[in-house]
């Protein structure tokens, strides 16, 4: 895995955001290198979801700088659309399109955004379905699949756009416990293939296995950022310590 030290995948400088009177992001500084896997954790309300939703323009920020894949994000729809072509996102609620089959879900964006011909797109889609291990579900509708299968389809759907960066917003939080593993396995495999990943999650086992860096956020700030080893054995801040204790208690 060769890291291109010249260009960062994501560069965040002094990012600030308000929801009305309430400041949800208080000056975030973060740099993610190409191929790096970053896990972001923290209590609810800490702003972690908001942060990664800023990265692909689903949320607009108020102050600071955000540069994704070399493109600086401003209040400009064309820039945002350009960024989104290189960044994929997987949602907590899967958000599959219920009126389309699994295959159609995967092919929609490559056809209409990238203008690729259908046959080529379908071949690639089947490849990705094989990679997430559910090629036989191609003609089914999302409503006919289990939660774990739906999330794997969602991951495959994002991958069909060949993104350079993948964002995960609590991908397993809406799943029944027995289906969490199948999704995490796909994410582990994705990590091993060299994808740059930013993942908001509570799954600490996954973090320990895959992350290059774990970031702990609380009340809109980054409290601590270190490699998994140091993070769990030697947390520097009191807040981090209590959070780890809570999370590990629930497994």
């Amino acid at each position: 895995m060769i890291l291109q030290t010249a260009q960062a995948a994501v560069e965040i400088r002094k990012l600030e955001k308000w929801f009305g009177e309430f400041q949800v992001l208080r000056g975030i500084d973060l740099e993610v290198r190409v191929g790096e896997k970053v896990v972001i954790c923290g209590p609810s309300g800490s702003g972690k979801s908001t942060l990664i939703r800023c990265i692909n323009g689903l949320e607009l920020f108020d102050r600071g700088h955000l540069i994704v894949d070399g493109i600086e994000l401003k209040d400009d729809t064309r820039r945002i659309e350009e960024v989104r072509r290189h960044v994929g996102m997987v949602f907590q609620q899967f958000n599959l399109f219920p009126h389309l089959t699994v295959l159609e879900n995967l092919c929609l964006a490559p056809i209409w955004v990238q203008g690729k011909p259908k046959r080529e797109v379908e071949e690639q889609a089947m490849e990705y379905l094989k990679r997430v291990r559910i090629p036989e579900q191609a003609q089914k509708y999302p409503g006919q699949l289990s939660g774990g299968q739906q999330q794997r389809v969602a991951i495959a759907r994002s991958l069909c756009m060949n993104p350079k960066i993948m964002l995960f917003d609590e991908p397993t939080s809406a799943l029944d416990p027995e289906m969490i593993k199948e999704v995490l396995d796909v994410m582990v495999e994705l990590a091993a293939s060299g994808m740059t990943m930013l993942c908001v999650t509570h799954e600490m086992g996954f973090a320990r296995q895959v992350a290059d860096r774990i970031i702990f956020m609380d009340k809109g700030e980054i409290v601590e950022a270190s490699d998994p080893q140091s993070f769990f054995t030697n947390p520097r801040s009191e807040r981090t310590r209590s959070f780890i204790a809570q999370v590990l208690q629930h497994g």
Partner: protein
Amino acid sequence: MATAPLVQPWRRWVRAHPLQAALSLLGLVLGVYLLLPAIDWAILKADFRGADRSACDSGGACWVFVKVRIEQFMLGFYPSELAWRPLLTLGLWLLGMVPLFWHHMPGRWIVVPLQFLLLPFLSWAVLDGSWLGWERIESARWGGLLLTLLIASIGISLSLPLGILLALGRRSRLPVIKWLAVSFIEVWRGVPLIAVLFMASVMLPLFLPPGVEIDKLLRCLVGVTLFTSAYMAEVIRGGLQAIPKGQYEAAAALNLSFFQTMGLVILPQALRKVIPGIVNTFIGLFKDTSLVLIVGMFDLLGMVQAASTDPEWLGMAMEGYVFAGFVFWLFSFAMSRYSLRLEQRLQH
């Protein structure tokens, strides 16, 4: 984008959406341009005081017209000295709401089904008077808001039991009963209320044995009831479909008969679920009662329309319509807000 939220958000919005801002400004100006003369006519220049046409000389709205005719608009041709009887009727209906909401009333399970059938008869008895030994006021003299509310209430009250029977019939597994229920419902839902009123006015006398006369209002009520019961049946069917099969199974396990299951377990739940639907049907019926005007009865709108053709008050049509519109709007709006709140509360 990196502007602090200290810049007023609306200034940022105007800069970002210039076309929409221009349209909004235009809309605002237009609205004021149209609204000011209306307010001027209806309130500022309007005549509120006086007793006859001569008081209306300012060119604004002549509310004296409404004031002078208010009794007719409210009661039709019912003598105003006997206005206590319509009020008594109103009181009876309001009293009838009590068992619906007082969940622990003793004997509730007898009173509630019966009152839907009794209240219409009681209303007729009180208003007409002859059954109770009072001075008789024929139904042709009942009019105005009294008639509107009467037709709507009686219509809903009688269509509820009939609707329940039809809904149950439609869900029956016996083909004859199901087929009869479906035909009845689809026929009455497929034809306009006006056609039904025409049919009731013209054909009901034909269906009765020769020589039997049937009161004009009664014909309307029959038509309205049959028409509304078809819509009511569909509303109730929705509620019945929402009851989980487990309820039927539990009742069967407890060895309850069909009627016991329906009366004690299924219907109470189903009806509670569709109360908003029932209220909406009532609102629709309330608005539709003005159609009786076409078969010669004078509800609120009918009275207003008739009054506007009075030679003494020619040209007052607008005032009449605004008044009638306001009364209808008030009732409908209040009921629909109530229905919304009910729906929200029932979701908990």
